[in-house]
């Protein structure tokens, strides 16, 4: 019975966090894209601690990009890495105090994997679920 109550409580917590990712992005992520033209594709997932998401993204040369990984605060410091097709890590936000965004430009058009990992949490705690959105903004140069 106690176990069931714990699960029910955990589930209740989870359901509270499972608000709409769309609303989450709208209300929480827009400001960080100030000065950039946002992308048109909606890329967001709900993840638990320890989960991983991977996005394959193509970037053009000569464009200033901002890659923003906007996540619900209950998930803690979400780690993201940009990895090239050879498996080399181009960027790891763990080296920059888990910054939510990365500003960059490329000399040549490339496809990279963006690997997102939600940190594990104490097993005794209630594992919350939260939205993680991947947003790409760009500045168009004349």
């Amino acid at each position, binding site marked *: 019975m106690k176990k069931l109550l714990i*699960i*029910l409580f955990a589930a209740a917590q989870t*359901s509270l966090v*499972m608000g709409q*990712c769309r609303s989450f*992005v709208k209300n929480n992520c827009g400001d960080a894209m100030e000065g950039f*033209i946002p992308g048109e594709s909606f890329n967001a997932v709900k993840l638990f601690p320890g*989960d991983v998401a991977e996005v394959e993204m193509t970037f053009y040369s000569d*464009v200033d990009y901002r890659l923003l990984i906007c996540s619900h605060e209950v998930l803690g410091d979400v780690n993201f890495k940009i990895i090239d097709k050879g498996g080399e890590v181009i960027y790891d936000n763990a080296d920059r105090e888990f910054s939510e965004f990365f500003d960059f430009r490329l000399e040549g058009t490339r496809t990279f994997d963006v690997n997102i990992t939600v940190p594990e949490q104490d097993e005794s705690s209630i594992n919350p679920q939260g939205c993680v959105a991947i947003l790409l903004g760009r500045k*168009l140069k004349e």
Partner: protein
Amino acid sequence: MKDAVKPKFVYVPYFKLMKIRLFPVIIALSLSTLWSCNDGAVSDESITNAEISKEETKEVSEETATKVKEILHSVPSPLDMAAILKKSGARYDSEFLNKVRNVNEYSSARQRALNLGIYGADLSYASVFNQNQESILYLSCTKKLADKLGLSKAFNDEVIERMELNIDNRDSLLTIISDTYYNLDSYLKENDRDHISAMIIAAGWIEGLYLGTQIANSSEVPSPKLIERIAEQKISLRNLVALVMSYNDTGNLNFIIDDLKKIEEAYGSVSISESKNTVSEGEDGVTTIGGKTEVIISDEVLENLTKIVSEIRKGYVQV
């Protein structure tokens, strides 16, 4: 940190869970159904719920799996292609765009979705080239199609008003267009209509490539930068095919996959070589990822590609 569970040989759409903690999720879904406040939009839960139903049977044996790995795909938008066209020295030519008058003739959901993508690319093209009045016209076309697809909630009249108010500010216009398509995309995905989203994305990409190849073809001496950009689309095409395949559970998108495969074939002998990536941080705080991408495309390949893309696009826009 424990290793993530790897998916097996499948492309998965944005919300499709490869491994599911079934019990707590089912409880959570039940509770959230009881407690949720309906604001009129279909919630994420309903999508997740539908997907769990689909996955339940085959995933039960993996009930104990503790990690989820999701794979998503993202391709550059028509706006990026339009910006590339402008930067590469292309001229604006409205003759290449889909005719505004066609908008009322599209009667099936497939035609409407494809042309929502196509008009969206035309809208981006017109806006990037500061063709403000045409931009408003093309925005109206996209609004009409969105309404007919039942997407009025994601594309209301306010968008047209915002466009008109910002008519002289190109970056504001582009932000409004991007926001609008982002809203449409998120609305479609949240309402389990991601195959429509895939049609819009694919048709928009094809229209961007159509405009690029037509502009190159009509120039006496096409800009080498433009040719290079057209060739580089081979890189994003691979990603686009993966994206469309990930939404093709019902086979509704087979025709687009076939069309994209034809374009892939046409790109066949285009060679792309990438030098090693280097990383350096500039004084402006922007990181430069160095490493050139060299592309080689012959005149014959470009000509054939132009023809194939034009044929496919003709099939999409015809009334």
